[in-house]
């Protein structure tokens, strides 16, 4: 009950103050620095991690990142930093 009420409150505040969508709609935010870094927020879990491929679960669907020499620099709740050489970012429903 309180959670629901809080979500509604959040949406209303977001609209009123013109906040970015990733905050309100729980969409992933991916920041990339060239090919070498990808900074992914709001993920829901790690599905696959190999040297050449990372699959992350999102709110609705998955993200697949392809490349080589992947290392997870940081793994926190809702935040992952990937280092390596990134070739491809795909959204899979």
């Amino acid at each position, binding site marked *: 009950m309180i959670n629901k009420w809080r979500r509604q409150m959040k949406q209303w505040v977001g609209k009123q103050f013109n906040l970015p969508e990733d905050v309100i709609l729980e969409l992933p935010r991916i920041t990339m620095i060239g090919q070498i870094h990808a900074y992914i927020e709001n993920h829901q879990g*790690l599905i*696959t991690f190999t040297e050449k491929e990372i699959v992350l679960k999102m709110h609705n669907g998955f993200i697949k990142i392809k490349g080589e020499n992947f*290392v997870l*620099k*940081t793994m*926190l*709740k809702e935040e992952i930093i990937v280092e390596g050489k990134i070739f491809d970012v795909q959204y899979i429903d």
Partner: protein
Amino acid sequence: MKFKQGLFWKGYITVYVEGDRPENFLNRCIEADIPIWDVKRINEKKMELKLHLKHVSKVKKIRRRLGYKLTFKAKHGLPFLLAHLKFRKPLVIGVALCLFFIFLLSNIVMQVKIVGVTPETEYKIQQRLDHYGLKEGIFKFSLRNIDDMERNITNELKDVMWIGIEEKGTTYIVHGVEKSLVHLDDNQKPQHLIASKEGEITQMYVESGQPMVKVNQHVNKGDILVSGIIGQTENEEEDKDNNKNENVNQQQVHAKGKVFAETWYTTETIVPLKYKHDTLTGDKDQQYKMKFGKVKVPIWDIFEPDYENKYEEVEEKPLYFLNFKLPFTIEKKTIHESERIKGERTEKEAVQEGIEQAKRELKKHIGFDSEIIDVKILQQSKENDKVKLNLYFIVKENIAVAQPINQGD
């Protein structure tokens, strides 16, 4: 990335995770709020990752639930170093003792050197230094103020003109300058003795030279008392005896002697009828504190003495490690018990006190072989609870001072 700060201090480990789908293990860790970094895939069933030491127990719980195999690859950071040192206790104790002794020895006076003086004076200075506590083997911070020591020793030793104490690490170098003894030349030079003050002569001791005055004679300042030219009076006889050469009997000598005379001083003193002053009872308490910045930690004598009135002296001494000044200082606080003396005097007592005061004052000005013969009160008045005295002193003192005879050539 706050969790990556202070890694060395907190300690972290590198582990291998083996099992089916190690990603699953990672997800569990994330859910349990365990930060993980530098994750590498080794092969299908194996991953390498790093995590904080403090999370190891949590991770082990997860492992037990999911059935993965954990292998510790490497341990990093201070906690592991310390744990390792536990097995090398003798070494640790040795190093600690070594540092402690270096620290101790850095704060001890190792050598006191006295330079620039004759062995005789050196011995005297040595004795004074011992008295003031500057000797080999004591702690530097227990020393008194060096400036005071310099001044006191200079005052106490008559044949020393100046003393400087230089601190060089654990060595103290005491520079002394001796008063040069009276030049032998001066002893031979012809001189008169003249009166330094007006007075009436009471006694004369003449070692050499021709006395020019007699006992009970009144002399003015600058009068010749003992002449360094002897044979002068014979000039009168010269007429009678022309054969004698004029210059033969005229001789210049070093006049020497003491001429005591009664001299007079008038002084004015004011003595209050009510008085109030603080004196120290002699009871004292010493406290030592270690000071770091503004934080003070008591080392010795924590309790404040229960003195009603007190007078505090605070001295701060730096601590050394080898030649480096440490940020710690030792604060030495001496608390003296003081006493406030209040009282009233009658006019009679005030007069007595005034005379005593004036005598003490006068004795500072006249020589050590002088004596006060008589005191007379010239004037006595009382106003505003104060007694004002005009005193007249009769003093017997040596008024002879040397005056070189100008030889002209």
